[in-house]
């Protein structure tokens, strides 16, 4: 498509692919950025689509399980479940009906959203441009809103489990006295607040950064001549199969670890 491109064409192309399909809530129009009062429709739609896919598939399998010899689909789902439960069981000491389903949700949902990265970069934007959609970014996890939307819940749960496991007094004592002893309590509190607040930020920025970079590289690969694309594009796509799975796993694993740390005393 783009056999030879000038620098300005290339930068327009990249810019184009890095713009969201947005909806201005204040004016009700599909263009124009209204700061906070904007919805990234592309991220929302793909994230919802992935969520529906996940809920539909897993919900359907869960509704049709049988204890006897399982089918191949049920077997696969059960393997994922047992895998997640094992990870949770190893890290999280204590009983929780929430952690394991939360981890499973994160793993599968994030994986499905990351998977959009393997669609050709121009596929959805070009297809939707036929329907008048000017910009479309197909990878929701390359949108920090989406990743923060998950990691903030992790932060809320982190605070909740801290209080639940230690109580107000226990948590207060821990914040004041660890790790440097009671005489350095201002430092302890500052360290602790920093530590806990950094967790959701690093969690979401890690996923966002990886996916954004991956997407960007795919966009840049799309700029090289078509007869070279399959070499770099192929290598990067194969590498990305690993990355998307790994990032989904890391997000899940760190969620489990953070919540386990909240549960255990420091």
């Amino acid at each position, binding site marked *: 498509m783009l056999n030879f491109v000038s620098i300005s064409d290339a930068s327009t192309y990249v810019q184009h692919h890095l713009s969201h399909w947005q909806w201005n*809530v204040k004016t009700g129009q599909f263009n124009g*950025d209204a*700061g*906070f*009062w*904007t*919805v*990234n429709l592309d*991220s*929302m739609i793909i*994230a*919802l689509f992935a*969520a529906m896919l*996940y*809920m539909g598939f*897993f*919900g359907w*399998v*869960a*509704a049709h*399980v*049988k*204890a*006897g010899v*399982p089918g191949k689909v049920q077997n696969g*789902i*059960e393997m994922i*479940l*047992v895998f997640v*439960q094992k990870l949770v069981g190893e890290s999280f000491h204590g009983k929780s*009906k*929430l952690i*394991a*389903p*939360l981890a*499973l*949700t994160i793993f599968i*949902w994030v994986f499905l959203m990351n998977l959009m990265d393997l669609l050709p970069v121009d596929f959805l934007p070009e297809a939707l441009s036929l329907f008048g959609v000017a910009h479309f970014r197909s990878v929701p996890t390359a*949108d*920090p*809103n*989406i990743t*923060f*939307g*998950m990691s*903030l*819940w992790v932060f809320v749960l982190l605070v909740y489990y801290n209080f639940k496991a230690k109580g107000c007094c226990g948590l207060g004592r821990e914040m004041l006295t660890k790790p440097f002893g009671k005489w350095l309590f201002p430092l302890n509190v500052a360290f602790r607040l920093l530590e806990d607040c950094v967790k959701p930020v690093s969690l979401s920025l890690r996923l*966002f950064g990886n996916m954004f970079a991956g997407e960007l590289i795919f966009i840049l690969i799309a700029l090289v001549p078509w007869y070279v694309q399959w070499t770099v594009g192929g290598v990067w796509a194969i590498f990305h199969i690993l990355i998307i799975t790994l990032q989904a796993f890391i997000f899940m694993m760190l969620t489990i670890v953070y919540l386990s740390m909240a549960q255990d005393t420091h």
Partner: protein
Amino acid sequence: MEINLTLIGQLITFAIVVWFTMRYVWPPLMANLEARQLLISNGLVQAAQAAVDLEQAQLLAKTLLDEAKTQAQVLLEQTQKRSLVLIEEARVDAQAEGQRVLSLAKNEIARESLAAKESLRHQVASMVVAGATKILGKEINQAANQQLLDDVINQQL
């Protein structure tokens, strides 16, 4: 990178998806896995029990077989003994029967020989009388000389 309402949307979506998983995905699948665990462990217990049962059954069968063999052996020995006895009895019977037949035959022979002697005596007496008549040229009364004839014949025979 700008934060906007999408964040709120994602917060809501995430909560719903996690709730859905907690409510409709995780518990039924886990309950099912536990049910299968139970099924399999029961199956294993039953299989172990079956193996024990089989061993016992084999032992029982072996015992029964051994008993049957012993009984068969005993029966065989009894039969052999019995057959020996029967053969012995048969031999004795046969001997007795042979003896009887022999004595019958001897009696018969004695009787026949007696009859032959008697007949011979009569014939000889007749011949002697006939011969004497020829020699003497006159009739001899056989009845009158019977005593004499019998003496001669008895001496000769």
